[in-house]
């Protein structure tokens, strides 16, 4: 079995973002970038499948600017076998990402695509579902458990009401929640080894995909700020404030 893992380069989850002065977007120059946390979980899951002998090859794919190579190298250092960079300076929307990934899937013919449920920059939560639709494949979204059966993927999904178990016909696309596993750190020797692993570079034109955006971002603004309130001294004062000042209980 071959597994494809798309990995996105995003502003690190611990960075406090800054909005550009002209409100055109969020500042990314000189900001720490990392692999989208959900994608780390996806990489980890794929490597575990290979370590268990269920998968034979794990391919990490990233789409975007040249420096997305760093994100791919991180995946390779964690244990992925090889990488593919689809390089473009266009800011890709989920539909364009899904179309590019579709082209990569048609080339590589993986049995399973494991990806993040959501990129923490755009918070779109779309790409996996779109990819599954374009391929005409089954989808298992927001999963916290994965087991490979006879030509099926058995998944547990985290839904608003609790959990849902589905059986997906393979090939399939799954999108992962953070609770699926605890991603490993890449060791220094593995980081060194990752430098020698193959990394192929492709262009959207070569894949025949039109990546023109469908949405125009008119502006990006600061959300309304919440003012800090008061500290209360004890429980009695708190309850009094809630009853008589805020009148919410």
């Amino acid at each position, binding site marked *: 079995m071959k597994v494809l893992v798309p990995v996105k380069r995003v502003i690190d*989850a611990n960075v406090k973002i800054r*909005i550009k002065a002209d409100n055109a977007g*969020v500042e990314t120059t000189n900001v720490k970038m990392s692999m989208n946390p959900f994608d780390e979980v996806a990489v980890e899951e794929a490597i575990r499948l290979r370590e268990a002998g269920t998968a034979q090859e794990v391919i990490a794919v990233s789409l975007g600017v040249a420096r997305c190579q760093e994100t791919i190298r991180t995946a390779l250092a964690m244990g992925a076998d090889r990488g593919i960079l689809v390089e473009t300076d266009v800011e890709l*929307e*989920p*539909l364009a990402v*899904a179309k590019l990934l579709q082209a990569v899937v048609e080339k590589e013919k993986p049995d399973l695509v494991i990806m993040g449920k*959501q990129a*923490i*920059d*755009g*918070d779109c*939560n*779309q*790409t996996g*579902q779109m*990819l*599954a*639709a374009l391929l*005409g494949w*089954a*989808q298992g*979204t*927001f999963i916290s458990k994965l087991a490979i059966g006879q030509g099926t993927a*058995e998944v547990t*999904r*985290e*839904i*608003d*009401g*609790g*959990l*849902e*178990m*589905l*059986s997906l*016909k393979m090939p399939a696309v799954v999108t992962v*929640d953070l*609770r699926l596993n605890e991603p490993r750190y890449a060791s220094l020797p593995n980081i060194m080894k990752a430098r020698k692993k193959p990394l192929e570079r492709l262009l959207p034109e070569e894949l025949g995909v039109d990546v023109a*955006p*469908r*949405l*125009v*971002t*008119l502006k*990006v*603004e600061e*959300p309304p700020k919440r003012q*800090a*309130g*008061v*500290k*209360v001294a*004890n429980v009695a004062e*708190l*309850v009094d404030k*809630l009853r008589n000042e*805020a009148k*919410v*209980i």
Partner: protein
Amino acid sequence: MAVLVVAEHDNTEIKPATLNTVTAAGQIGGELAILVVGHNCRPVAEAAAKIAGVGRVLLADQPHLEHHLAENVAPLVASLARDYSHVLAPATTYGKNVMPRVAADLDVAQISDISGIESADTFIRPIYAGNALAVVQSRDSIKLITVRGTAFDAAPAEGGSAAVESVPDTGDQGLSRFVKQDLSVSERPELTTAHIVISGGRGMGSGENFALLETIADKLGAAVGASRAAVDAGFVPNDYQVGQTGKIVAPDLYIAVGISGAIQHLAGMKDSKVIVAINKDEEAPIFQIADYGLAADLFDVLPELAKELDK
């Protein structure tokens, strides 16, 4: 203009987020239709017909739609979508699962989790865990949208009298199979619609200690929520999680207990009307957004709070 709202339901009842989505649809304007997809779900269609402002109800009632599998629901929605300028669904795990698949079928973008509508083609949506708001304009012929429930009031469930019509089926794709569901059962109000929410974090220490929160929740008629750390530690089930990658809530009163106030948690609750923070660390970031902060040990505070509420 005509707007189609995809209803979320369990084949018996409409989920409240559908009503917020109807309000968003009303702000766009034009004729409003609701699509009910499921099995043995005519009562849902009849309830949908009564929602104020709804002009038509479309019903797709088929055995293979019973479990709302995205592979079967999406082609059905897509088959109807071309008659509409906008297709909306709640930004719940239901809408998030199905709608991008519809968007790909139609070759249009999806605009996720909108919190405001500027015009028929321009929408506001939070990005970066709500630390920025993007105003985006769509160039697509069909605007495919998921709606943040807390940003729109619920439409009145009564007052309409739309006709229910059946729509043609698009078949079973045979790609996935429902195995089972493990749903939380609770007598307490649902997290996203409750007027009061009390949430516990890692500071609760264990699942057993959540009983302290439940006692207070029951006195206040509140729902119980949690931070990701509390869920990841196994204190409570996943459906308790509030935050960027969990549920978005905006109750009249949100009480955060033993929660530090990471941006990913704030993303899910900072639009609450009144926020109370109980944390033993004076410096915890949660105090920066709390209307009322109590810097104390929760194991002292919670029993005392229970007593004080009885007074």
